[in-house]
């Protein structure tokens, strides 16, 4: 076989071919490509981004406040409900309460129930059902 030299007269071609009429029929529809480009790429300006961020921040604050308020109301409703339940359904007797309360609690209760002795006497005098009170 003859030695291969790159600068030989018989140059080797790449051997690549194209389908018949390829170059004659090669066109590019610029109009379609232009419109395609417009629909494909949405440019969001920095100002729009800032505006969106502000709206998002306001929304987050609004939602947080609503949720917080709702939770607080529910909590209050819960405590009232609990109180009602205890007073209506509880099996706790007075003795139970006395054993559960410590000295400090009893002291607090006595402060709250600090009646004026004269007022009490007057009340007794004006009430016919004093017997009931005494037996209670």
């Amino acid at each position, binding site marked *: 076989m003859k*030695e*291969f*030299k*790159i600068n030989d007269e018989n*140059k*080797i*071609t*790449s*051997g*690549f*071919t*194209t*389908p018949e009429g*390829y*170059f004659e029929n*090669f*066109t*590019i529809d*610029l109009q379609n*490509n232009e419109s395609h*480009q417009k629909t494909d790429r949405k440019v969001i300006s920095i100002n729009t981004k800032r505006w969106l961020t502000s709206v998002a921040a306001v929304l987050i604050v609004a939602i947080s406040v609503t949720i917080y308020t709702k939770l607080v109301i529910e909590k209050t409703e819960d405590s009232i409900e609990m109180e009602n339940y205890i007073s209506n359904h509880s099996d706790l007797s007075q003795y139970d309460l006395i054993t559960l309360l410590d000295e400090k609690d009893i002291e607090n209760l006595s402060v709250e129930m600090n009646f004026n002795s004269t007022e009490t006497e007057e009340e007794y005098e004006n009430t016919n059902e004093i017997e009931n009170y005494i037996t209670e």
Partner: protein
Amino acid sequence: MEEKDFILQLLNPKTQNSAFQKLLSDYKRPLYNIIRNIVLDHDDANDVLQNTFIKVFQNLNNFKGDSKLYSWIYRIATNEAITFINKKAKISGATSGELKSRIVENLEADTHFDGNEIQIKLQKAILTLPEKQQLVFKMRYFEEIKYEEMSTILGTSVGALKASYHLAVKKIENFMNKD
């Protein structure tokens, strides 16, 4: 016509279409050839050629005229072709070298290749070169692009291109003459 006037025609909506048709007819063959030599497959070369012209059209406003329109368009074409083959290789889980080897191995079955044994061997010889040398060799040997023009397309000095081509030729001759 002066190049500046031609660019103005391409940018003017009234003359744009006819100017672009001229650009297409002037460049489609040489660009196809250079792209085909890089991506090797006809359908891929067609896709890259389409993308190249679309990019040229979309970026005409950014063309500063620092280099010639010719160099600028060729640069877009080579970049598009190299990006394409790298992406294709990545998708198939191979390197671009492995992908090209696979294509060259199947060249005989390619309906758009009518080369003989020597031409296939030359393609195989080219694959043994580093990427940049492959490009320089193809541009110089197949497309006969002058070193000065190649220098503006690839952004490499004429001296470096000549050295690169010289090295490529040595390796290819060795490959072709063994066996």
